[in-house]
């Protein structure tokens, strides 16, 4: 009877899953269901770009109407880090809100949404053994000893989570934090502080090499294996940048979409709470490692809009990019405007400076159970020492409880829509048509970029992977007495104009078209 009831309940929840409010981050199959539902909308193309080594689809949604390849586009990317499950939900909810509530924006803007770039790693959130995973499912030799993944995590206390492990040892570098005894900090030996613990991820020395959790049973991390500052030979990065199916499939797809002018990436890197800094020295080197000066001003402007739109006040948001990551790739190597935010962080609480102590104090105040108390375990590698397992649970610092996601998604959707309103916008103004006699007419017109953003950022103007602004007139060679039939412009700045003139022989209509896929197009017809 009881069994029957349970089965019935499970069945019921399956059937009615739509009507029940989701209470936790979705499983991969729930993500797929929601994508398929989105895909049934006429404005949405759902495509699987490839399957990962773990057999998971890498999806992209292309959302737009009409001539969608000729409208400026924003790409929204989630699942850049597998443990950052919030980012997948933010990308998904953006897509859902876009289609259901904001379809009018599609008249002018196209969107690409990559909901989850790390599905192999994402799955660990729902697995029997939960840990913050970054790598995909390829076998990998992170410690480069000739053996693959031979020394990963072990769930020593059997709680289904990988947390931390501390071993009492006077030679250890760690000590208990004075304000919160749950937290460990590095002893400051310059102040005469003595360490008390050695600290490791929860693990055993499986290969007996004296190292712990140094060769994880996970593969390459998407957000560590792109080309900008690729950390060659390092764990989770591998030997060659963009070596994985998902990264190649995504990049191959992106390089065919000429209309993307900006990226919004949900990942730990943040240039929205605070813009990137400009360094003249690094910007002028052959290998550019600073945002360029004019692009920094754009970043600052967009950051201002973000901070007006998103209510959460920034605290300890110091990650402005890590080696091999996606957020920096989109700017430094793909030359698009690139904006990134984790979407969520622990707010400053009671003036605590230690991030973990701050988090725990805040979590305590909300009654969240997010700490595994330090508990003694028998550890085979430390038979004569006191070993304890405990620490902050995986996922909780990067991802809020699910009920908090709705508001975050609303605010970030509003931000992305504001960014769309700012997109480059080409218009013709001050059209003049003067008769010169003998059947000749001089046409003069201004091409105006009616936007706070340039058609090409400073970086964008350097890249061959953005098209130039092209001005075409449809007059034949015989009719065109002077003026260019085809003219290319490297860039048109924010609220900048360029003036063109032609002398045409004869009568009829004369059409001008100007633009680039990522800047949109303007057309003008003149009757002669």
């Amino acid at each position: 009877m009881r069994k029957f009831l349970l089965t019935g309940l499970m069945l019921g929840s399956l059937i009615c899953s739509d009507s029940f409010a989701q209470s936790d981050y979705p499983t991969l199959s729930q993500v797929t269901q929601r994508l398929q539902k989105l895909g049934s909308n006429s404005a949405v193309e759902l495509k699987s770009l490839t399957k990962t080594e773990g057999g998971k689809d890498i999806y992209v949604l292309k959302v737009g109407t009409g001539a969608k390849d000729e409208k400026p586009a924003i790409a929204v990317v989630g699942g850049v880090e597998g443990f950052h499950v919030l980012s997948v939900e933010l990308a998904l909810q953006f897509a859902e809100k876009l289609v259901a509530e904001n379809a009018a924006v599609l008249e002018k803007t196209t969107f690409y949404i990559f909901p989850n770039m790390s599905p192999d790693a994402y799955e660990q959130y729902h697995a029997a053994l939960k840990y913050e995973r970054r790598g995909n499912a390829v076998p990998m030799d992170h410690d480069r000893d000739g053996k693959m993944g031979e020394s990963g995590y072990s769930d020593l206390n059997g709680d289904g989570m990988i947390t931390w492990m501390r071993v009492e040892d006077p030679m250890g570098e760690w000590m208990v934090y004075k304000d919160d005894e749950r937290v460990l900090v590095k002893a400051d030996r310059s102040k005469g502080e003595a360490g008390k613990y050695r600290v490791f991820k929860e693990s055993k020395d499986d290969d007996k090499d004296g190292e712990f959790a140094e060769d994880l049973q996970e593969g390459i991390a998407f957000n560590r294996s792109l080309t900008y500052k690729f950390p060659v030979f390092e764990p989770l990065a591998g030997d060659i940048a963009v070596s994985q199916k998902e990264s190649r499939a995504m990049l191959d797809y992106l390089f065919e979409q000429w209309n993307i002018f900006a990226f919004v990436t949900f990942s730990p890197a943040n240039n929205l709470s605070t813009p990137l800094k400009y360094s003249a020295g690094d910007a002028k080197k052959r290998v550019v490692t600073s945002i360029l000066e004019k692009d920094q001003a754009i970043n600052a402007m967009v950051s201002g809009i973000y901070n007006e739109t998103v209510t959460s006040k920034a605290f300890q948001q110091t990650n402005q990019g890590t080696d091999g990551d996606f957020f920096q790739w989109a700017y430094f190597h793909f030359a698009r405007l690139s904006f990134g935010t984790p979407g969520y962080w622990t707010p400053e609480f009671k003036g605590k400076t230690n991030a973990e102590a701050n988090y725990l104090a805040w979590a305590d105040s909300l009654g969240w159970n997010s700490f595994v108390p330090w508990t003694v375990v028998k550890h085979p590698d430390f038979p004569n020492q006191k070993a304890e397992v405990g620490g902050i649970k995986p996922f909780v610092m990067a991802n809020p409880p699910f009920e908090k996601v709705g508001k975050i998604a609303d605010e970030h959707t509003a931000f992305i829509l504001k960014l769309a309103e700012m997109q480059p916008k080409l218009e013709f103004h001050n059209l003049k048509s003067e008769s010169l006699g003998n059947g000749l007419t001089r046409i003069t017109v201004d091409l105006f970029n009616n936007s706070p953003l340039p058609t090409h950022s400073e970086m964008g103007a350097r890249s061959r992977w953005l098209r130039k602004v092209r001005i075409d007139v449809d007059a034949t060679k015989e009719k065109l007495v002077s003026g260019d039939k085809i003219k290319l412009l490297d860039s048109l700045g924010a609220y900048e104009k360029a003036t063109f003139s032609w002398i045409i022989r004869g009568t009829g209509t004369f059409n001008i078209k100007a633009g680039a896929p990522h800047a949109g197009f303007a057309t003008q017809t003149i009757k002669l």
Partner: protein
Amino acid sequence: MKITKTTKLIVALALSALCLSSIETNAQQENYFRAIGSPHKPKVEIAWNRYYSAEGLWDWMKKIAAAHPKLAKIESIGKSFEGRDILTLTITDFSTGKDTDKPAMWIDGNIHSNEIQGGEFSLYVAWYLTEMHADTKFIQELLRDKTFYITPTINPDARNNFFKEPNTANSPRSGMIVLDNDGDGQAGEDMMNDLDGDGHITMMIRRSPTGRFIKDPLDPRRLMAVGPDQVGDYEMLGQEGMDNDGDGEVNEDGIGYYDPNRDWGWNWQPDYIQRGAMRYPFTLPENRAVMEFVMKHPNIAGAQSFHNSGGMILRGPGAEEDLNTYNLEDIRIYDAIGKKGEEMIPGYRYLTVYKDLYSVFGGELDWFYGNRGIFTYTNELMVPYLYFNKEAGRGNQDEQLKVDQLLTFGDAFVDFKEYNHPQFGTVEIGGFKKNFGRAHPGFLLEQDAHRNSAFTIYHAYHTPKLSVMDVKEEDLGGGLKAITATIFNERMMPTHASQDLKYRIERPDYVSITGAKVVAGFVVEDEDMKKFKEQKASPEKMAVENVPGMGAVKVKWIVSSASNYSITVDSAKGGKASWKK
């Protein structure tokens, strides 16, 4: 006997593309007298004074593999952009071990499609090793110890385009992917035009009352600039072509453009930093095929890439920013081999890419060395020195005109001829042919191919050669014995380049003992001072991080029983060797 011979004859006949009668060939060979250093009666007769299309090269490769089944195997390692096979010959003495168990040399050519002779030079190595094997002790030993992986063209699509379609000496250089070069949204809308239909893209000049040139009255091929106070009667219009798309530019959007030698995954940089790069490392299927082959063949210890031109033996770094990648220990070895090359190939100089040529990212040689720890050279084939054994400088037009007058009798030049151009009116079209200047003239091909092949053979010879020697036993009492073995490397290259050691690119070398009960194992740090480094886990399989060139490491075990034991060394780049009691 007679029947089999006839069958062979028929097979040979069927194989022969040129329908030369084998009977005739055999009869002729009776009239030959051996020249030192060349295959006397080669099973595969290749003319070394002409160039071969991709299919032509493959035809010879297949013939080499068919004629020497114990020494050569052919395989496709991948497909080009247009779907052609990338064919690789594996050359080794298969009777003495698997190719993958021996230190190997990778050789390729023609990565730049217009740099054609790399194809013939690579093929020459394969031909020479297989045809000389029977008569030469040195080559027998070489192929017993080593493997050669030879891929004459890693850009077959555009190689054929260079031969069969109108081109200059510098085009296409890339492969056959057509990109949008001028950023106008269209790809390849204004290719070169072979206006005079001769297969060569030469130059256009025009008579003009305001021109700044005149034709040399003594040599109508030569346009001379007039002095600052003189009036000329010709102007230069540039490359043979038209404005096909009406944007006011001529030939501005052709094949490519990208550079297959900016596509490799070591400190790769995008196009705005490194012109010619594609989307990410190994975007190009031809390079990806090579990369995947090399990753699957960790026995490759040396590599050679053939380019043209200028007479250079180049080592990395390609980019100044990579200066720290190459350290002194490895440079000593590079220098020793490279300087020997200067002696072997007159007119060629041993140089470093970033400071002597240009500073570039994403080159093949940097990937081979930086990412895989493989000692690699790029040779820029053909140097004008070969014309008159004189240093006249690169691209010296006066010398080139003289060469074509005295040595090639006008075959290298398209004389200026009038043409009615749709945009420029009456012009004259002419100039040097695409296969002159960078490519060797036929009479210089074989000698230079031989000398460059000899250089790569010298390089391959100095990949590591390991042996287990000087095994000593010492009775320690109490039923214990110490066994010490020396692993000797009798060539210049170490099993791990210093770059390899720095990043742990390749696994360590393993020295294993079987048939003994091992109590403890040590790497000997100083035998005389009795300094040993113990390996606690699996002491029967000692991990040695490197066996230096022309040097040795010693390994010591304490065993509780050992009778008919054997000791083996297994190194990814150093091959295998064993010793048995």
